[in-house]
């Protein structure tokens, strides 16, 4: 787990909402106008800070949804008891401003350079698909031919984020869904939570030297990561990003 130093002060800058895209009934992508943005890598995140007219501030971290070189975008899922996500998914309009700083993180990233030219396994639970989508877009932009499988676990088809984009993936990219709660009529795909059998069917063989990125709620990430290790993936080839609570404890 060695890293390359990325140091230097991160300062807050003003972002203007440039475009708003509804992804599902509770998920929205905001494309930001950020004139001072220094660039980012696929998989990194940023911090945002909202300021009310009474001076009240709230900060949160979000994965960056866009590829390096594209306008910075975040995809936000509304959490009903949240304070920031309801504002970003319901109230915010084009032209509104808040503050951003970043990019942050340098481990859960995919650059697509020579050392990354091995089969890529991406596993997303729910809105964990966001940083993986940045990797897919980056792969297309740099013309990489690395074979990719994206396993996307989501409750129902209606909750699939980036649905139209993922329905016509680039050459060499395979998107495999598991719809864990509700399936459309005639669904022949997976319809259960991820398990070792599913991972054995979906994951690239260990012998191909694959690299895995797993992002989602804790239970999903724990299941996928431990299944991959059980299948023989070296732990350092399984990069994870977890969010949310475990329930216990």
């Amino acid at each position: 787990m060695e890293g390359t130093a990325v140091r230097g002060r991160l300062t807050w800058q003003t972002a203007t909402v440039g475009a708003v895209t509804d992804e599902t009934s509770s998920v929205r992508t905001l494309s930001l106008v950020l004139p001072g943005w220094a660039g980012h890598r696929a998989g990194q995140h940023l911090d945002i800070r909202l300021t009310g007219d009474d001076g009240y501030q709230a900060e949160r971290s979000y994965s960056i949804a866009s590829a390096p070189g594209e306008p910075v975008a975040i995809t936000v899922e509304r959490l009903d008891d949240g304070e920031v996500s309801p504002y970003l998914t319901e109230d915010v309009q084009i032209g509104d401003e808040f503050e951003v700083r970043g990019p942050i993180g340098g481990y859960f990233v995919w650059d697509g350079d020579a050392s990354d030219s091995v089969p890529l396994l991406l596993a997303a639970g729910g809105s964990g698909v966001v940083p993986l989508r940045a990797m897919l877009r980056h792969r297309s932009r740099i013309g990489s031919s690395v074979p990719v499988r994206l396993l996307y676990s989501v409750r129902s088809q209606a909750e699939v984020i980036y649905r139209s984009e993922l329905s016509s993936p680039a050459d060499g990219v395979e998107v495999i869904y598991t719809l864990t709660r509700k399936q459309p009529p005639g669904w022949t795909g997976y319809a259960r939570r991820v398990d070792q059998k599913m991972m054995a069917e979906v994951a690239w063989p260990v012998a191909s030297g694959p690299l895995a990125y797993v992002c989602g709620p804790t239970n999903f990430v724990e299941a996928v990561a431990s299944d991959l290790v059980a299948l023989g993936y070296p732990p350092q080839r399984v990069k994870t990003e977890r969010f949310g609570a475990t329930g216990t404890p």
Partner: protein
Amino acid sequence: MSPISRGFHRRHQEAEPAGRVPPGQYVTHDFPVLSAGPTPHTRLTDWTFSIEGGQSPVSWSWQEFQALPQETVTVDIHCVTRWSKLDTSWKGVSLDVLLGAVSYTAPYVLAFCDGGYTTNLPVADLLGGKAWVAYSYDGSALPAEHGGPARLLVPHLYFWKSAKWVRGLRLRDTDVPGFWETYGYHMYGDPWKEQRYAGD
């Protein structure tokens, strides 16, 4: 001067306990999990806790570690991803006890863990009843996803300093960045000064 985010306002009206939540944090009642890789599962028979870099190395087996004086503490914890959790209850061994078993002059440590994680800390932040190696949370054995069998507990710093799956400390004359510190997180990580990233 921060720009006003039109229409944004406080939604959570209940006041957070005064003086307990650092700037930029919010209180959660869950216990979120954040780690960079798969959760390691080390058998207790293979587990040791070592302190290296002193006059002579020391090491405890799991059984020996359990025989050390225990403390039960209730502390507030603060994650750099902005959640804080108040009144968390832990049981473990004070670093005063552990470092007291070693003769050394080094001012820093690099904690090392199963899975390859590391984090750097000043020795002064581990002494004086401020830090523990904890193996029990809320009355039960510490679950693996939260760092079990044992993790560092250094509640006055951001929680990435409370390394999960900790296996020992390497005493050092110089302060070298650990895992997240190498990726741009702050070398010290004081939540009350919002030392999240390098340069904060």
